[in-house]
Structure formats: C-alpha cells, structure tokens
C-alpha cells in the first residue's frame, strides 16, 4: 500500500491530491478542495478518481464491503446448513414431526411435540415471573429512584446479564432446586394442587425450576429496554398527569406506562426471544424427560435442551437429522420473535440516540 503505483497515472484525481499536499497547505486548498468536497458529498465519484485500477480507495471500500457481506454470507450459511442437514428427517416425517408426542430414538420414531410444549411452558413461566419484576425495576430506576442509587442498581442489573448461562445452571442445581424441593414445592402442592398445576412428587428439578432460572436470566434484558422506552416518554406527559391531580402511582400508570406500552411489549417479546434460545441453565434443571404433563412440578424437556443433551450421542443419521430439524424450528421461531420485538421497540424509540453500546 505505497504511493508508487499512483505516480504512473498522472491524471488520477487522488494523485493530484497527494501532490498538492506535498506542495504545502496554501496550494493544496485550491486543487484538493474540490476532490475533498467530492469525497465528502459522495454524490458523484469523479471520473478521474475512479479511472485508476490501482485505486486504493476502491480497494479499501471493497475490502470493507467484503467484511459486511460476510455477515450476510454467514446467515445464508446458517439457513443452508440447517435446511440441508435436516432434510432426511423432513422427508421422512413431514409436518407431523411437530405434532407427534413420541420421542423414541431406539425405534426411530421422532415426535417433537414434548419439546415444543416444554419450550412454551418454561418460557411462559419465565415471562410471568420476570415481566412484573423487570418492569418494576425499570419504573423504579427511571421514576422513583433517588439519584445516587440509580447507577448501582442499573449496574447490578446489567451485571446479571453478563453472567454466563452455565453458572446460572450451576447455582440453580445446588441452591435453587433444593430451595424449591424443600420449601416452595410442598407449599404449592398444599395450597394449589386443586388447579392440577402443582401435583406430583416434589423433585425440585422440573419446569418450575427451569422457568425461575430463565426468569432471572431475562430480567436484565427486559428491564434495560423498558428503561430506554420509559426514558423516551416526553416529560410533559408526566407533568400533565400531575397537573390533572394524579397521585405518583397514577401519574406513572397513566402518563408513562400507557405511553410506553408498545415498547414494553417489545421488550417482553425480546426477553421471550432470549428465553427461547436458552440452553445450558435449562438443561441442567429441567429434568430431561420428553413427556407432556400438566403439572409444573414435573420434569420436562425443551427444544434447545434436547439438542444439547442428545446431539453428541446421536447414533444414526436420522436421529441427527431430527435434532437438526428441531434446531431449524428453533432458529425460525427465534428470528420471528426477535424481528417482531425489534419492530415494536423501534417504533417507540425511533430517532432517539442510544446512550451506550449494546
């Protein structure tokens, strides 16, 4: 990348720019002023500039373009690989793959319904627990928190997001599960077993444990996006509510939350997207039993967990292909959920600059 190639093509605009910069600032202002303007506006690539095949600007831009295209290529490869490797299972089972409830690798029957059920139920539990907590934290931090406390709380919440999934799983196995087994499950069974949702032996390990761990993991995401959304609500909305005689809580409910509704829903869906893809912590506490049971205290199985647990031991191609198909389904669902959530958050925070790197 030296200056040598350019010297052979005297008419290139870039070359004249280099020469003029060597002549000194006064003269360079004249000649390179125009090329400088051209580059800044970017509207027309002046012919002289583009004529040289050794043009380094072109090469540099091309290189960066390659890097950007790499992202597109990666996603294309993801889709291609998933489709290609799950083809055998798709040909054999078709759409009934997702409606059969029999997962029997030994006999070659693969029905993915237990995993779909497990994923949905555990994610729902996680949302039910996480959303009130996350929105409460966000509201507290933006509306009611005394200034000095604001940073530590948001700091702590973001640190929760940084903890790797295995460590949540480790903590869940040795702290959360015994807690559930000894205190929470028997209490739930005693008072709520009439609902049919809390029956069965109190293993501790099961859907509820997975849901609780997932909840802890998605609280930071929902909370931080809700905070962003709430901070965009114009101040005059709050003042108007107060002027009409609302109490603090009413002001928050009417003036702020109602305005930010779409954004909060978007944040929740984004949290759902993260929960759907959560693998490790869930695999460690969900019990890994591919059955559809009404009780929340029973072991279950999620789509991500079955891939994590059984992939390395899949004995034949059909087994592997069935797991790939589950992966494909997971991929599609996560994309749809994330895009939907992104759209909702974007419509609320449109145009406002983000204060920090994601």
């Amino acid at each position, binding site marked *: 990348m030296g200056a040598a190639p350019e010297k052979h093509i005297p008419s290139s605009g870039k070359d004249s720019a280099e020469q003029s910069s060597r002549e000194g600032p006064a003269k360079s202002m004249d000649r390179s002023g125009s090329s400088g303007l051209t580059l800044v506006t970017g509207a027309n690539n002046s012919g002289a500039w583009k004529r040289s095949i050794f043009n380094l600007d072109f090469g540099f831009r091309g290189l960066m373009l390659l890097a950007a295209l790499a992202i597109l290529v990666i996603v294309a*490869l993801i889709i291609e690989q998933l489709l290609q490797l799950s083809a055998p299972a798709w040909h054999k089972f078709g759409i009934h793959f997702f409606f059969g409830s029999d997962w029997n690798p030994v006999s070659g029957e693969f029905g993915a319904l237990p995993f779909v059920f497990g994923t949905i139920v555990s994610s729902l539990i996680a949302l039910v627990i996480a959303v009130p907590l996350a929105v409460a934290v966000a509201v507290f931090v933006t509306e009611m928190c005394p200034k000095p406390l604001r940073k530590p709380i948001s700091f702590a919440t973001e640190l929760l997001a*940084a903890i790797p999934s295995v460590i949540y799983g480790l903590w869940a196995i*040795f702290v959360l599960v015994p807690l559930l087994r000894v205190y929470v499950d028997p209490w739930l069974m005693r008072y709520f077993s009439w609902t049919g949702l809390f029956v069965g032996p109190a293993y501790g390990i099961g859907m509820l444990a997975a849901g609780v761990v997932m909840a802890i993991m998605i609280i930071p995401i929902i909370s931080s996006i809700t905070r962003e959304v709430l901070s965009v609500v114009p101040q005059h909305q709050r003042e108007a509510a107060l002027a009409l005689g609302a109490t603090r809580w009413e002001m928050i409910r009417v003036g702020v939350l109602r305005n930010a509704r779409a954004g909060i829903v978007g944040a929740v869906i984004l949290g759902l997207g993260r929960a759907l893809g959560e693998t490790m912590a869930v695999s460690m506490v969900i019990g890994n039993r591919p059955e559809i049971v009404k009780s929340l205290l029973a072991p279950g199985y999620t789509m991500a967990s079955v891939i994590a647990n059984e992939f*390395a031991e899949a004995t034949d191609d059909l087994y592997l292909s069935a797991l790939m198909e589950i992966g494909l389904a997971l991929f599609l669902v996560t994309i749809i959920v994330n895009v939907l959530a992104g759209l909702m958050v974007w419509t609320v925070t449109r145009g406002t600059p983000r204060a920090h*790197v994601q």
Partner: protein
Amino acid sequence: MSVLVVGTLRAIFAYLAFKGAGSLNWAFLTQTPKPVGEPGGGMANALIGSVMILGIASLFGVPIGIGAGVYLAEFGRNKLGQLVRFTADVLNGVPSIVIGLVAYGLVVVQQHHFSAFAGGVALAIMMVPTVARATEEMLLLVPHSVREAAFGLGIPQWRTTLSITLPTARAGIITGVMLAFARVAGETAPLLFTAFGNQFWSFSANQPIAALPLQIFAYAISPFDEWHRQAWAGALMLVILIVGTTALVRFVFLRRMLEGSR
C-alpha cells in the same frame, strides 16, 4: 421488587465466591482432571483450551466485525447497509446452540472430527455482529468535521479512515471487542459438539479440546462431590473473568468516554 432483583444478584455472587474460593488452589490451575473418585486434579487443560478457542475466535471474528463496522459507518448509508445492519441484529439473536449446529455442519462434518478450530469458528460467528455494531456506533461518534478536515487536506478516504477516524474511535472499538469477547467466553452450547471437550492436554487446533464452560457443565451435572467442588472453582474463575471484564468496560471506559465526548 428491585431489592429482590439486586438481592438475588448479590446472593448468587456471594454463594459462588464462598463455594468456589475454597477449591481454587494451585493444583486446580495446573493439573488435568483425575479419574473419578481420586481427589485432586484440576482444570488446567480447560483453561488452556478456552484460551486457544477464544484466540481462534478472535482471529476470525474481530477483523470481520471491525471491517463490517467500518463499512456500515463510512460507506453504509444505503439499502445494502440497512440490510447488513438488520442481518447483524438477526445473527445476534440466533440461539447459541443453533450456531453450534451450523459450525458442526460446516467444519466438523467436513473434517470428520471435532476440533478447537470448529469451536473457534462457532464463537467467531457469535462475535461478528457484536463487534460490528460496536465499531459502527463508535465510528459514528467521531465528528464529521474531523473527516472533512482530513479530506480538505487531500488525504484519500482510505487513509482518513485508517489513520484518523479509526484511531480516534480506538478506545470505543476496543471496548466493543472486549464486550464481545466476554460474551463468547462464557458460551457453552456452541462448544458442545464442535470442540467437544477433552480430558487430556491438547495444544492442537485440530483435535477436540477442553474448555472452561464445558468442563463446568460436565462436572456440575455429574454425581460426584469432588467434581462439584471443582465446578464451583471453575465457575468462580469464569465469573471473575467475564463479569469483571464487562463491569470494567461498561462502567469505567464507556462512562468516561461518553462524558468526554459531550
């Protein structure tokens, strides 16, 4: 309710420190796993393995990410730029286990064996969108007047970007890279069937290799107390590394930088 949330965080950290500190000793850091039932042994091979995998991942992920970020910031005010941005966000949201599946198909199936390289590729795919978005945002923070001044002096665009704009945004880009690094350092799922894990020392990029999160996972779900103890020690190390990096980056560098640029 925030007390509940923050309290949970403190409780997790405290418990981790309490359980892990007792087992974190020199033997842990320098030995490979011993057979089940024998006391002692460590996760040294997992530490080295993690370093190798993360090195390979950074080798591929960081240049592509920075390059994409430069394109988006400097040349990307067009439809292609919008598409790339959208795709990067999509890629960011793909579950890590699916990325592991893809790396399996792309590398392991072609090579017919598990390898550290495959694990590195999987983690690199995960690093690219984070690094690209961070680079783009940091480059956009550089005032346009700096670039215009460079153009006015006759410096071509490629030189401006390389010698002026990028160094100005250097601190922010480094923090973005560190954040991406911290994120993938804790990932287990993509490594489950790419790097696969290894009980012995391995320094080759073409063989299965142990990794810290993998080892923690394997030990945690085992029925042996000794291994549980070691899992806690490994977890403590991982948490200190990752959460420490994240906290440092987010709340020291970023705050200082953003306050300075206003």
